């Protein structure tokens, strides 16, 4: 029997929700697994059948990984040689500095492109094409340069490479926000007596603030979790969190899942925290049409 229009709608909406719910669960499961594993005692890390809810939940992984607390460390899985807080500090300094530089210079460049056409469409595209080169292709020659310049295993070295590799994103993203500011608004300020700099600070920057914040977070995520360049360009002196994370599997210890998960949760939280603080800007920044025409 044929369904009525209302019935058809109800069925199709149900099907849609089922698909989306399954998809959401699949996407969220690894995150849940990471958090759950970080609270599991070592016997449950890779037991079969899998343990979905840690019982009893334990803070041992956190205490051991972050604070090197030996009393929690079962001998086999004792990890105490690493310094996660040093890595956290390195990551914070490197990611935030390179992101700040990238957004600062990216937006200046984007303003020039948007208002003075200092780069043609083709040049802008080439700029983005730089990002199409897989980093692994350039990482070997880069490490030679770095070694010659004494930048290997330094924070400055990583800051420079992150700044340069994320600059194209920064230019493209901030340009789209600057393009949204009607030229007439700037010209109105100009004819009312504002200098170019005054116009930028009083009119353009306040209008694209949300966009800048969104760009900042986007690039911060990239630099915060970058692994390959950090792996090749650092050795022992400067270690970032993703590098630290990779050390929790070795030939002798096997995979130290619980410890690794505890560290991973620690890496994730700062980004989530930043996202929460600036969520007002994110919602506005990512919905581009923020300037009323």
């Amino acid at each position: 029997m044929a369904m009525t229009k209302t019935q058809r709608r109800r069925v199709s909406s149900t099907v849609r929700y089922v698909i989306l719910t399954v998809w959401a669960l699949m996407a969220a499961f690894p995150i849940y697994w990471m958090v759950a594993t970080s609270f599991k005692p070592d016997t449950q890390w890779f037991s079969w059948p899998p343990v979905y809810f840690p019982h009893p939940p334990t803070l041992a992984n956190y205490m051991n990984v972050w604070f090197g607390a030996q009393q929690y460390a079962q001998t086999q899985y004792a990890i105490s040689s690493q310094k996660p807080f040093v890595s956290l500090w390195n990551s914070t300094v490197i990611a935030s500095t390179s992101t700040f530089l990238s957004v600062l210079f990216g937006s200046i460049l984007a303003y020039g492109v948007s208002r003075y056409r200092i780069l043609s469409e083709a040049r802008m595209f080439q700029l983005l094409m730089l990002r199409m080169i897989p980093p692994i292709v350039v990482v070997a020659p880069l490490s030679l340069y770095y070694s010659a310049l004494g930048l290997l295993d330094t924070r400055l070295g990583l800051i420079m490479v992150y700044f340069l590799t994320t600059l194209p994103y920064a230019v493209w993203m901030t340009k789209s926000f600057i393009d949204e500011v009607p030229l007439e608004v700037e010209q109105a300020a100009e004819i009312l007596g504002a200098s170019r700099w005054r116009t930028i600070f009083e009119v353009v920057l306040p209008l694209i603030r949300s966009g800048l914040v969104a760009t900042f977070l986007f690039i911060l995520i990239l630099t915060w979790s970058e692994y390959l360049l950090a792996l090749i360009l650092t050795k022992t002196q400067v270690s970032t969190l993703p590098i630290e994370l990779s050390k929790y599997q070795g030939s002798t210890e096997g995979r130290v899942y619980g410890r690794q998960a505890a560290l991973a949760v620690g890496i994730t939280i700062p980004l989530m925290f930043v996202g929460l603080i600036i969520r007002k800007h994110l919602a506005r920044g990512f919905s581009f049409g923020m300037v009323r025409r």
Partner: protein
Amino acid sequence: MARIELVNLHKSFGAVPAVKNLSMEIEDGEFVVFVGPSGCGKTTTLRMIAGFEDPTSGEIRIGGRVVNDLEPRDRGLGMVFQSHALFPHKNVAQNIEFGLRMKKVPQAERVKRVQDVAEMVRITHLLGKMPGQCSGGESQRIALARTLVTNPSTFLLDEPLSSLDAKLRRELRAECDRLHQALNRTFIYVTHDQEEAMTLADRIVVMRAGEVEQVGSPMEIYANPVSYFVADFFGSPSMNLVAGDIVQGDAGARFRSVSFDVALPGRFKDVKPGAATLGIRPEHVGVGRNGGAPQAASLPVRLVEPLGRDTLLYFDAGSERAFVAISEGLAMADVQVGASLALSFDPERLHLFGANGRRLGPQYA
């Protein structure tokens, strides 16, 4: 003093000329309207005066001083933009205050002047609001106030009313007129709307394809269009323009087309025979039920529009474009569609345009 002189002004965008060799003077206190279809170069001219576009060649002088190399802010002008261009992140009072702040006017004086100008354009109740909360008409008043408060020697207005509905447009048009009377400043106004030009201007500059087609008072332009283009552009309903030929006969020159055969008055005695367009405004067409003299044609009625004060009659003249006549009052309101009526033309109000679109014969006194 804000006498503005444009001397051989030329502007090209790449290979495309936007304004060609424009020369004119705008007197202090004059209300000049640049009018023309989009792409005719009127906005480019205004933006060159403002300083947002650099002329490719030629000079702009304000009060006798060449300003080509001056920044917009140093030219002593005020501008109202088509999009209003309010600062969306500042409230109305801050928007209006902006120009005064840039000119480092002391705080106390700023507050007073913002208040005064807000009263002048009747927006005091909006001062605390954000531009996003204001309607189109209110935004335009705010934009006007923001310009007024800096007391510029000349106001540049770039299609300021084009984003508003018809009623608001009329209202703000009257407002512009009032401000011009009250301030006695130079106004340069750009529009594509002939009605705005007719009602506001001391002098109209009609532009077409980068060139000035005609400059004159609204009445001059209405009564003596120099070309087919100007004749067609001004007036609502617009002038009847009929394609045909001029023939010279024993009794003098005549104009002939599919539907018309009109004896041309003596002032056209020297026009050469050949293709031409005859123009006559709807209000200069006489309509008679029983044939009035001198009769130009007898045409079937296509449509009757009784407007109350007068009645518009649309005739079938053998072309796509209807031939329009205005009849006073409602005397003709009961005419049936399809009925033939006799038309007569006021011979003193006939216009002739040659194949090149220029006026033929002398202009009216």
